[in-house]
C-alpha cells in the first residue's frame, strides 16, 4: 500500500487546477475519467493525484417512504444524485474519485477551510475513499497563490478537522429536519385545497428572517406620521450670507415655530463663541464578507449573493483571499510588503501602493471580528491573468482599495462650530475642512470628504438673521429593509452564517414571500409568518435559531456534541409538527387565498388602454399554451386587445411605467442573464429602435 499515490481532494475544478500547478515540479498532467477532469503530478519522486469535487457530493435525505408526507424524522446521508433531480454529474464525479482512491495510500483534504469545506471533504473521504477520513491529512490555506499552497502543503495538518465537519454535519441534519417537515406542512396544506403544487418553504433561518421583515412591514403599514416644524434661517455675517441651524431641529407645534420666526426674523444678534476642534478618523476596518457585501450594494447595487459569487470567482483566480470569512484582521503572516509590491506592478494601483510602501512601518487597522479559519478579505497582489469582467473588476477594485486604505494614516479634519444668539434664541453655523486626507486618498472613490469652508469669524461679531422661516414636515416610518441592510440585521441577530445569509434572502424572493429592492412582504409571506406565530411561535423566533447557531459553534470548538444538539432540536420540532398537522385545513385555507391573490397581482399589468374598463393581465392561450397580455374583458367579448409576449424566461410586472410612453412595463429574466425591462406598447419608440 505504501507504494500508492497521494490523492488530494479539492473543492472545485479551478481550485484543483491551481493546487496541481502550484505543487507540481513541472506542469501537471490533465487527465479525464469519463469526462471528469483531474490532475497528476510528481513531487520529490512521489505521485500525486488532485481530484475536484463539485461542492457537496453527499446530502441529507429521507431514509425511506413517501417523499411528500410528513412528519419524517428518519434520514441518511446519500450521494446527491440519488436524492436530487438534475444531479447526474455527481454520480460520475463520485465514481471518478472512487477509482482514483483505489490505488491511493495517502489522502489530503484540500477543500476550502471552513465548516462547509471540511464537511465536503469528510463525506467524500468517508464514502468514496473507503473510510479514508480517519487517516487523511488536511491542507489549510486562505488564498490559491502558489506560495501559500506550497506553504500549506509543507505544513499539513496531521488529521482532518473533525469538529468543523461535525458542526457542518449537524447543521445540515437539523436544517433538513426543520426544512422538510415545516415546508411539507405548508405545501400539503395548500395542495389539499387547490389540488395543485406550489413550491413553498420555511426553514430554521428563513422563518425568523421573514418574521423580522414582517415586523417592519407591520410598523410601516400601521404608521401614523406626526407633524413637526423645522426652522430654516439665513444670516448675514460680515457681508456674506450663510445658512444657519436653529438649536432645536424639530419643533413639535406650529405655535412654537411661529414664535421663533416672529421673534428672530430681521433681527440682529451676536456670535457668542467660535470653537475649533480637530477630529481624527481612522481607516475603515478590513473587509469581512458581510461588510464587502454591504459596500458592494452601496456602490454598485449588487445583491449580497451576487457579490459572493463574484468574490468566489476572484478567489478561484487567486486574486483575492477566501471570501467566506468573518474576520476583520490582517495578520503579518500574509506578507503585506509582498502584496503591496505585487499591486505596484499593476498600473492602476502603482501610485497608491507605492505611497503606502513609502509611508514607513506597515501596520494595518483591524476590526474587532475574528475568524479562526481565515483572515479578512485581501488582494493577493497577483496580476489578473486575463482582463476582468465589469463585475469582477469592480469588486476587485473595492477589495484592493480597502486593503490599501487599511495602511493609510488617519484622516484629520478641522471642525468649526460658530454659535450665535438672536433675541434669546440660539443658532449655529458649522464648517469643516480637511487638514490631512490620510487614508481617504487611498479609498477613493469609495470615500469622499465634503468640505464646507468658513472664513475666520470672531466672537462678538454682529449677525443679521435676514431670512427665518418655518417648514412643516412629517415623521417617517422606519425604512424598508434592502438586501444589504437585511444582511446586516441578520448578522447582528446571529441568524444564519456568513456562508448562508445571502442565499436565504434570495430564497425569500424566489418563494414570493418578499418583493422589491426596498423589501415589501407579500400577503403570502405575511400569511406564513402569521400561521407560524399562531401554531408554533418558537420556530420563527430569533432566540430559538440563535441558540441553535451558538450550539453549532460550540460543536465546532469541540464543546458540544452532535447527539445533544440533534436530540434537543427534535424535541422542539416534534410537537410543532403535530400542531401543524392538526391545523392543516385552516392553514391551507388562508395560505391558498393569499397565494391566489398574489398570483393575480403578479399577472396584473395595468388598466386596459383600449376599452378603459378592463385590466390587462398575463394570460395563457388554452389552445397553444403560449402566454400573452390580454384584457379581462376578453372573456365577455367586450374587448379584443392583446399583445404578444416573449415565451421564455420569468416575467414580472414592473412598478415603473415606460419613460417614453407611460405604458406599463414588464421585466424579463432569462436564466443566467441580467433582468431586462421592456414596454408592452408595440408602438412605443423604445421598441422601434430595437428592430
Amino acid at each position: 500500500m505504501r507504494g500508492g499515490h497521494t490523492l488530494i481532494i479539492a473543492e472545485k475544478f479551478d481550485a484543483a487546477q491551481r493546487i496541481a500547478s502550484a505543487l507540481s515540479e513541472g506542469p501537471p498532467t490533465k487527465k479525464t475519467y469519463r469526462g471528469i477532469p483531474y490532475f497528476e503530478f510528481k513531487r520529490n519522486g512521489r505521485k500525486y493525484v488532485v481530484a475536484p469535487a463539485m461542492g457537496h457530493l453527499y446530502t441529507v435525505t429521507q431514509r425511506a417512504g413517501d417523499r411528500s408526507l410528513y412528519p419524517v424524522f428518519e434520514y441518511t446521508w446519500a450521494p446527491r444524485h440519488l436524492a436530487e433531480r438534475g444531479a447526474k454529474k455527481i454520480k460520475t464525479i463520485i465514481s471518478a474519485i472512487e477509482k482514483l482512491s483505489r490505488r491511493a495510500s495517502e489522502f489530503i483534504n484540500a477543500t476550502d477551510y471552513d465548516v462547509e469545506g471540511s464537511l465536503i471533504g469528510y463525506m467524500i473521504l468517508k464514502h468514496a475513499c473507503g473510510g479514508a477520513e480517519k487517516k487523511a491529512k488536511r491542507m489549510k490555506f486562505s488564498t490559491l497563490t502558489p506560495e501559500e499552497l506550497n506553504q500549506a502543503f509543507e505544513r499539513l495538518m496531521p488529521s482532518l478537522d473533525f469538529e468543523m465537519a461535525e458542526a457542518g454535519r449537524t447543521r445540515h441534519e437539523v436544517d433538513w429536519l426543520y426544512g422538510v417537515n415545516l415546508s411539507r406542512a405548508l405545501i400539503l396544506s395548500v395542495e389539499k385545497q387547490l389540488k395543485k403544487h406550489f413550491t413553498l418553504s420555511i426553514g430554521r433561518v428563513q422563518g425568523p428572517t421573514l418574521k423580522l421583515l414582517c415586523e417592519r412591514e407591520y410598523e410601516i403599514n400601521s404608521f401614523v406620521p406626526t407633524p413637526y416644524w423645522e426652522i430654516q434661517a439665513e444670516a448675514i455675517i460680515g457681508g456674506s450670507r450663510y445658512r444657519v441651524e436653529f438649536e432645536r431641529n424639530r419643533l413639535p407645534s406650529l405655535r412654537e415655530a411661529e414664535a421663533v420666526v416672529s421673534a428672530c426674523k430681521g433681527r440682529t444678534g451676536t456670535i457668542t463663541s467660535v470653537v475649533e476642534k480637530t477630529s481624527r478618523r481612522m481607516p475603515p476596518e478590513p473587509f469581512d464578507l458581510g461588510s464587502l457585501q454591504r459596500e458592494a450594494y452601496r456602490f454598485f447595487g449588487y445583491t449580497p449573493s451576487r457579490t459572493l459569487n463574484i468574490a468566489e470567482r476572484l478567489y478561484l483566480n487567486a486574486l483575492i483571499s477566501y471570501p467566506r470569512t468573518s474576520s476583520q484582521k490582517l495578520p503579518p503572516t500574509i506578507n503585506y510588503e509582498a502584496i503591496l509590491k505585487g499591486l505596484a506592478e499593476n498600473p492602476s494601483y502603482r501610485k497608491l501602493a507605492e505611497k503606502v510602501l513609502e509611508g514607513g512601518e506597515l501596520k494595518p487597522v483591524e476590526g474587532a471580528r475574528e475568524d479562526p479559519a481565515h483572515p479578512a478579505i485581501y488582494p493577493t497582489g497577483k496580476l489578473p491573468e486575463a482582463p476582468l469582467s465589469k463585475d469582477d473588476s469592480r469588486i476587485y477594485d473595492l477589495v484592493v482599495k480597502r486593503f490599501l486604505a487599511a495602511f493609510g494614516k488617519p484622516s484629520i479634519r478641522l471642525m468649526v462650530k460658530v454659535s450665535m444668539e438672536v433675541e434669546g434664541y440660539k443658532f449655529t453655523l458649522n464648517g469643516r475642512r480637511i487638514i490631512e486626507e490620510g487614508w481617504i486618498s487611498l479609498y477613493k472613490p469609495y470615500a469622499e470628504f465634503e468640505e464646507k469652508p468658513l472664513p475666520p469669524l470672531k466672537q462678538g461679531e454682529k449677525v443679521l438673521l435676514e431670512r427665518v422661516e418655518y417648514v412643516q414636515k412629517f415623521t417617517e416610518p422606519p425604512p424598508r429593509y434592502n438586501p444589504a441592510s437585511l444582511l446586516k440585521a441578520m448578522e447582528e441577530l446571529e441568524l444564519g452564517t456568513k456562508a448562508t445569509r445571502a442565499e436565504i434572502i434570495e430564497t425569500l424572493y424566489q418563494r414570493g414571500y418578499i418583493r422589491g429592492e426596498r423589501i415589501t412582504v407579500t400577503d403570502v409571506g405575511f400569511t406564513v409568518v402569521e400561521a407560524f406565530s399562531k401554531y408554533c411561535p418558537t420556530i420563527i423566533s430569533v432566540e430559538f435559531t440563535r441558540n441553535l447557531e451558538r450550539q453549532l459553534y460550540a460543536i465546532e470548538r469541540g464543546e458540544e456534541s452532535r447527539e445533544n444538539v440533534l436530540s434537543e432540536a427534535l424535541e422542539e420540532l416534534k410537537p410543532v409538527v403535530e400542531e401543524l398537522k392538526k391545523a392543516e385545513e385552516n392553514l391551507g385555507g388562508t395560505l391558498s387565498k393569499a397565494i391566489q391573490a398574489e398570483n393575480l397581482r403578479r399577472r396584473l399589468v395595468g388598466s386596459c388602454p383600449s376599452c378603459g374598463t378592463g385590466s390587462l393581465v398575463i394570460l395563457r392561450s388554452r389552445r397553444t399554451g403560449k402566454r400573452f397580455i390580454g384584457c379581462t374583458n376578453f372573456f365577455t367579448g367586450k374587448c379584443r386587445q392583446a399583445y404578444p409576449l416573449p415565451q421564455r424566461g420569468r416575467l414580472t410586472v414592473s412598478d415603473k411605467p415606460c419613460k417614453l410612453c407611460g405604458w406599463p412595463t414588464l421585466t424579463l429574466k432569462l436564466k443566467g442573464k441580467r433582468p431586462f425591462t421592456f414596454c408592452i406598447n408595440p408602438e412605443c419608440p423604445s421598441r422601434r429602435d430595437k428592430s
Partner: protein
Amino acid sequence: MKCPICGREVIPGGSLCDRHTAAYRNLLEGFKTWSKAMEIGWKDYLKAIISNPAAGRWVKEVARRLVEEEG
C-alpha cells in the same frame, strides 16, 4: 366575523382584524399628537392622513372607511 376592510377574521370582541385594529389605535393616538401640534378637527385630520405619503397602508384604509362612514 370578518373585517369589513380586508375580510380577515376580526379580533375577539372587536370589529376589525388585528392589522386594522392596530392601525385604528395608532390613528386615535396620532390625533392626540396632531391636536397638540396644530388646530385641526377629526375629519380634516383623517383627510390629511389619507393624502400623506408617509402614512401606512392599513392606516389609510381605516381612515378612508371612517371618512365614508361618517359622511
